[in-house]
């Protein structure tokens, strides 16, 4: 056997094949911290692809991260649909007022073309630049919002729930528009050099809609959309629970599921082993005030719950680590993965909770 350590990509591909690589891969999903590395405001940082490329490369070096994450911010997609984006100094740019102010507007809505959207072209340029810098050494993770979750920003959560439950025809029409956009946007990122796509779909989580409703709606949208995406996809529920729908997910073709700290990680691993890999599930909000010792304990616990046998990537549970999480904590997480995540694992396997959660009520 060669003594050469695995590259990040080899490490990730091995674990996705449900085998144990040299150590548990670490995906620190940092979007904003690159601005701090470069001494820039968030608005300036996201204004030029060169800044984000340099920020991502520095973060990967500093934290020995196993991926590059050219995700700018969630509202970049509503920006493409004509919405406003508001920058702050302490968090991701936020979506402005909804672009769909009445459900009737959906009838005349047309999806934007990626090539016509400067905000999306910046992301594509960033992906291309990262690909040129790292080649096949590390995976580059592109991001799309699920067609089923994007309406939360397009029309507001309340109006969207009302549409979903009270105007099924218009809901279905909006899904078809969003699916067309999502597929084009995902494939553009893959063509630019992204290795895989992270499909953020918090509305499909059992935290937001019941499993039965998911099977009739969000799952159908995911099946159609993933079928059109020409590359590997991770389904990510952005902190929402997915245990009740875990068995529904492999048929979408997803290779990875982003999981929440609200679910029992050991139980998820038991149910997913050999079928789909898990990504998660450190608590990013609480991480802000972890001591290095707490960070190590959390990493160790996650690895004990899901690391054995491969099929696991350590990450936060939301898909974006808050800007307030300090460098020392991120370094402690990285150090702990290198210490406790090296295979064969020194930490014993944590068993799933003996009392499974009660089934959902519909």
């Amino acid at each position, binding site marked *: 056997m060669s003594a050469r350590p695995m590259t990040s990509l080899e490490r990730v591909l091995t674990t996705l094949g449900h085998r144990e690589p040299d150590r548990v891969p670490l995906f620190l999903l940092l979007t904003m911290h690159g601005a701090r590395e470069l001494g820039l405001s968030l608005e300036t940082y996201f204004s030029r692809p060169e800044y984000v490329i340099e920020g991502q490369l520095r973060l990967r070096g500093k934290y020995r991260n196993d991926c590059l994450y050219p995700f700018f911010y969630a509202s970049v997609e509503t920006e493409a649909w004509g919405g406003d984006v508001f920058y702050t100094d*302490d968090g991701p740019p936020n979506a402005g007022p909804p672009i769909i102010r009445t459900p009737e507007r959906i009838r005349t809505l047309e999806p934007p073309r990626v090539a016509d959207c400067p905000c999306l072209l910046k992301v594509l340029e960033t992906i291309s630049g990262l690909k040129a810098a790292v080649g096949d050494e590390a995976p580059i993770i592109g991001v799309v919002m699920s067609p089923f979750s994007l309406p*939360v920003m397009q029309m*507001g959560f309340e109006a969207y729930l009302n549409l979903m439950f009270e105007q099924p025809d218009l809901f279905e029409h909006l899904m078809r528009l969003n699916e067309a956009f999502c597929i084009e946007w995902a494939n553009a990122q893959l063509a630019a050099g992204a290795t895989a796509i992270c499909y953020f779909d918090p509305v499909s989580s059992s935290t937001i809609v*019941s499993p039965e409703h998911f099977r009739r709606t969000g799952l159908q949208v995911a099946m159609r959309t993933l079928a059109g995406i020409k590359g590997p996809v991770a389904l990510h529920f952005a902190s929402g629970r997915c245990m009740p729908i875990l068995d529904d997910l492999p048929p979408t073709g997803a290779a990875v599921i982003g999981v929440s700290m*609200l679910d029992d990680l050991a139980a998820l691993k038991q149910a997913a082993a050999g079928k789909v890999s898990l990504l998660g599930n450190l608590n*990013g*909000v609480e991480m802000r005030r972890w001591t290095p010792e707490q960070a190590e304990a959390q990493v160790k616990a996650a690895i004990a719950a899901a690391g054995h046998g491969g099929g696991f990537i350590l990450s936060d549970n939301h898909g974006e680590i808050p800007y307030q999480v300090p460098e020392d904590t991120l370094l402690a997480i990285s150090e702990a993965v290198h210490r406790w995540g090296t295979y064969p694992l020194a930490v014993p396997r944590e068993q799933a909770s003996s009392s499974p959660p009660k*089934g959902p009520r519909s």
Partner: protein
Amino acid sequence: MTSADPVETFLNALLAMDRVMAKRALGGPASADVRLDVVERLVVPSLERIGDLWERGEVSLSQVYMSGRMCEEMVDAILPPSDPRRVDQPPMAIAVLDDYHLLGKRMVYSVMRASGYELKDYGTVDADALVGRVVRDGIVVLLISVLMLPSALHIKRVREALGRAGSHPFILVGGAPFRFDTELWREVGADAMAGTAAEGVAVVRELLDRLPKEHRA
């Protein structure tokens, strides 16, 4: 609990989003006092149970939202906003800080109104605007909903600015950041946090029970 239990019947109708069944479970025309009793006996406990079920991952947010909205509509029909039988209360307000995601606030607003309370709805505001309105309206109980961590951290500025203006409302906070970090509400200077809309109602009810009469409307 049997299937004939009125709370369980009403609860099941809400979770199934069945307005007809829910109205039937609330009962037909009755005297005002009896209708008020229905709110206390059926609506409030049902919403509390739905909040608990969401906490335990057994129902979804969309079911919580639709239940609150249906109850608000039904209670408005029983107890119009001007009805003196609504709860005797001091000035209360609710706001979303820095965000156009209004669902959390909407759910709390619905469940508060479905439980018989009235409160001003400030919608989406920044910290300065919120302080100005709270001082102007003499708010005694302030409910703040947030979606993002930075917005949660801004509540500390709201608390400090209110203090400088001589206003000391009871601040109840809620939203995802507080659910994921259960110490955060203390850090930002709030007086309490609620994990669900129904828990928010319970906190307000307990507070009002302790509040001296002169602070009430």
